[in-house]
């Protein structure tokens, strides 16, 4: 397994405790790569790795710099203001903008997407790993991959022109029976609401949740399942007793990866939603907005200062997705070490 160490270990001295590891590494690497070709190649490949880190750092740095330019002149509170007016048309040229509406819209649409997508994705993953006839499993996995390959603009087009017109019936039904909650009241009109966006996002994040969950389901030790079956458990009881408990943390991180996608989806949301900068209690009525959608919709007519304001909101989105994705990856990484999958 260990190629680099096998080339260096015969000559490498026993570990020296008086020297810090950081001082040892370059020396040892240099000994392993004495030939100029080796040194150049190692330098190139390590440089590429470092370049990736530099790009990540640069993204954070440049976005922060431009965002700071915008925020220093903002007369509203960036977190709590319900307006987006960086040009200051209503306030005598004084920029007045905040992300409260965007936070609301982004969170609501992503939650709707997760609520719909996670159960369905778990179902499909179980279908592929435990229920489908063996011959069907591979083609079905391929179909799910195709779902991931469709570009988001095509989802947007389809969502706006095919799905949305078909949702009026469902929404009026929801309004009839659950309208009293306030969340599901529907005043008619084109259903280009956060709910429609949520449904579309659910379809778009299905593949990633399904694929990661399926991987985890397939890692469940066969012995656990056979033990349950031998006790006379039905297939469902086997899954509930041995598969789901084992896979719980994997499914959670899969959902978080899906959440990361849903938070940052731009063009499908911009196509389907008819945005307005208000917070609407009903998820069925049009209006609202998300971070990414707001950037795409407002970008064309924005001035340079307006673009900086949009960059400020993009920075918030960047930080949120970074946290969500980082947490998901940490959960997966921790699982890999402790799971008895290879036992």
């Amino acid at each position, binding site marked *: 397994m260990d190629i680099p160490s096998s080339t260096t270990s015969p000559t490498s001295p026993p570990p020296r405790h008086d020297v810090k590891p950081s001082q040892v590494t370059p020396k040892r690497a240099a000994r392993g790569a004495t030939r100029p070709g080796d040194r150049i190649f190692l330098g190139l490949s*390590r440089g590429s790795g470092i370049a990736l880190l530099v790009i*990540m750092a640069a*993204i954070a740095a440049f976005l922060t710099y431009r965002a700071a330019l915008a925020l220093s002149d903002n007369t509203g509170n960036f977190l709590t203001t319900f307006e987006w007016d960086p040009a200051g048309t209503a306030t005598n040229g004084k920029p007045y903008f905040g992300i409260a509406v965007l936070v609301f819209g982004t969170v609501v649409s992503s939650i709707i997407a997760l609520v719909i997508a996670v159960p369905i994705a778990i179902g499909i993953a179980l279908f592929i790993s435990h229920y489908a006839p063996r011959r069907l499993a591979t083609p079905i996995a391929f179909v799910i991959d195709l779902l991931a390959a469709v570009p988001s603009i*095509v989802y947007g087009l389809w969502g706006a022109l095919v799905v949305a017109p078909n949702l009026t019936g469902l929404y009026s039904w929801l309004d009839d029976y659950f309208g009293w909650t306030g969340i599901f009241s529907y005043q008619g009109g084109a259903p280009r609401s956060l709910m429609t966006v949520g449904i579309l996002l659910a379809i778009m994040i299905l593949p990633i949740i399904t694929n990661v969950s399926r991987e985890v389901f397939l890692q469940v030790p066969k012995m656990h399942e056979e033990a349950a079956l031998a006790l006379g458990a039905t297939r469902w009881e086997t899954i509930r007793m041995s598969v789901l408990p084992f896979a719980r943390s994997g499914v959670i991180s899969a959902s978080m990866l899906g959440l990361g996608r849903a938070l940052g989806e731009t063009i499908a949301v911009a196509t389907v939603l008819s945005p307005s900068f208000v917070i609407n209690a009903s998820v069925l009525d049009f209006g609202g907005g998300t971070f990414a959608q707001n950037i795409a919709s407002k970008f064309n007519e924005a001035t340079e200062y307006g673009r900086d304001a949009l960059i400020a909101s993009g920075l918030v989105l960047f930080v949120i997705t970074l946290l969500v994705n980082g947490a998901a990856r940490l959960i997966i990484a921790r699982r890999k070490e402790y799971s008895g999958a290879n036992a």
Partner: protein
Amino acid sequence: MSTTTIAKPASLRGARLPRWTPAVVALGSAAVAVAIGTVAGLDSRIQWGLIAAVLFIVASYAVAVAVEGGRQAKDRLATSLVWVTFLLAVVPLASLVFETVERGSTVFNGYFLTHSMGVVADDEPGGGIYHAILGTLEQVLLASVIAVPIGMLTAIYLVEYGRGKLAKVVTFFVDVMTGIPSIVAGLFVLSFWILILGFDFSGWAGAMALAILMMPVVVRSTEEMLKLVPNELREASLALGIPKWRTILKVVLPTAIGGITTGVMLAVARIAGETAPVLLLVWVNPMINTNPFEGSQASLPLYIYQQYAAGNQAGYDRAWAAALALIGFIMILNLAARGVARWKAPKTGR
């Protein structure tokens, strides 16, 4: 044969429903749902489907409770739920492909592929996507030229050299980078290339953002493939006194090249459909601009977005036709990638 059996052998297992029950229940609930839909005058097909799904789940549970008892019924409930979720995923894909092909084929022809929007107003029919195809190809090509070498070298570093802290950090950030929203990559290039360095909108600016999105995908897939290369190959080469870098270039990479190509093609398919960074960085151009380094360009996803935003029938037709072209391009790339993977699969067996 067993006509002389005295005790009923089935008595040990309890009553079971025949194998065809789910199929019959499914057909029955579909029929009832259609009936309800027609009688109640529901015009949305989505409602019909949801009613059928609920009916199917409830009916198969009820039948199973009556015949087989509680535990088996729960098992059946889970099975039917799992089947329904699968159908719920297939239906959107089928609808999307069907609608795109049907609505897209109205104006999709040779003229559409070979003409630009140069002299066509937004609301009149005609025009085409030649300029957009050109822009997409150039931007994707430039993005690949940046992302593929960096991505592959990073993967080589992680698999062949990477020990210690730097490799761990790089691995983690590659994972995190996969999740960067495309619009954020666009904003980054906007802030440093256009707002700070003062360059103009161009295909090249878009390509840089696309490269950022492409890199982690290339790293991941190359890494997976390099890990599949058997260690005996490396050891054999090193034992002959071949320098490590030549071992990697001449032994490891050729063995894994099929899988790496697949990964790169899938990455290209992914970025070819990205709209958000292109929207921010390439701007809009209805004319043919063959130079990606100067002046705004067009691109297929952006073209679809604009034609949709124009909000008239001629625009919608063009948007669907362009969507058909884009999906076709991406599906062909996907299928070709899988073909390459099968054709050049690393021969790990003995």
